[in-house]
């Protein structure tokens, strides 16, 4: 037996052989009993290492299944039902393409929106003009100084065409604007 072929059996058992070579190896095993025997022994070794037991398929296992299959009908499935593999592969490649596109868009946006590096003068100016964020107490105090009811009233007075704030001859801002446009 060629050593290269035996090494391929070893790779095949470890799921490390490419698809095309795996297919060729399986086809050779169908006709070369020596190769099939080597695979049986390698399988037994694998199992014995892992499980302390020794069992593998009998040498005539494949032939026996194959002869039983002769009694079975042959599949002739219509094309429309056979597309599951193509769809599965398409879906997978589609997902990869979508992920790659997303990464590209994010990278592009990040690149275009990246601010120009600021000069030391600009940084100093920003530091001077920057104000500390208002504290909670300050926010509450400003709210108390300008009650909510008054805020609503002022808003309506400015924007409503009918709100008059209970004052005689008062024309709301919106209405005045309307007249002046006429």
């Amino acid at each position, binding site marked *: 037996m060629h050593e290269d072929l035996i090494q391929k059996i070893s790779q095949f058992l470890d799921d490390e052989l*490419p698809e095309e070579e795996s297919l060729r190896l399986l086809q050779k095993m169908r006709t070369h009993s020596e190769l099939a025997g080597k695979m049986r022994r390698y399988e037994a070794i694998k199992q*014995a290492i892992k499980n302390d037991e*020794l*069992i593998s398929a009998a040498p005539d296992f494949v032939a026996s299944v194959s002869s039983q299959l002769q009694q079975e009908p042959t599949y002739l499935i219509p094309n429309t039902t056979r597309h599951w593999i193509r769809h599965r592969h398409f879906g997978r490649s589609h997902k990869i393409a979508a992920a790659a596109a997303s990464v590209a868009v994010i990278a592009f946006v990040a690149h275009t929106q990246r601010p120009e590096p600021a000069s030391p003068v600009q940084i100093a100016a920003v530091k001077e003009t920057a104000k500390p964020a208002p504290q909670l107490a300050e926010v509450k105090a400003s709210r108390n100084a300008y009650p909510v009811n008054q805020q609503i009233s002022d808003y309506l007075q400015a924007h409503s065409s009918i709100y008059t704030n209970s004052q005689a001859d008062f024309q709301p801002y919106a209405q005045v604007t309307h007249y002046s446009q006429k």
Partner: protein
Amino acid sequence: MKSHSRASEQLDEDLVLRVQQGDKSAYDLLVIKYQHKIVQLVNRYVKDPSESQDVAQEAFIKAYRALGSFRGESAFYTWLYRIAINTAKNYLMSRSRRNVDMQIDVQDAEVYENLPQLHGQETPERELLSREIVETIKTAIAKLPEEMRIAIMLREFEGMSYEEIAQAMDCPVGTVRSRIFRAREAIDSKLNPLLD
């Protein structure tokens, strides 16, 4: 750690497609590929090596009959394992030999494969030979050169890929491939006298 490579699944899909297109010989290749794993899996339930062969054959025939409805929602080997487990359970129930733990399902199958085997209804001679073979394998592993031993241990016990072993051992993938192959050949050469 990977359990089934993409290339392996791809090969299965192509072969299944060929069977579904009427090529029965493609199914032989799937049988060649999975025969040992299915016999070993079935034997976990049946616990009788000779009956396991028959039940495993039945599982392959059932899988062939059901292949028309296989749509690839799961990987072929997962689907095949499920059929094999159900066939083994049905066999045990029909014979009422022993209670079957119905909690074991296909998701557990790969984990279950790694558990120590409870020896079943083997003949004393056969069991003795099995033990002798297992001991021979262990001795052969212990006598391997260190780098070969580590490579095959990482592969078989840790389930690491060649790429991962190469990183762990700081050597090319080709070297890992060669070391594992050489280790198997060395063990096989010790096994030959017992199997002849």
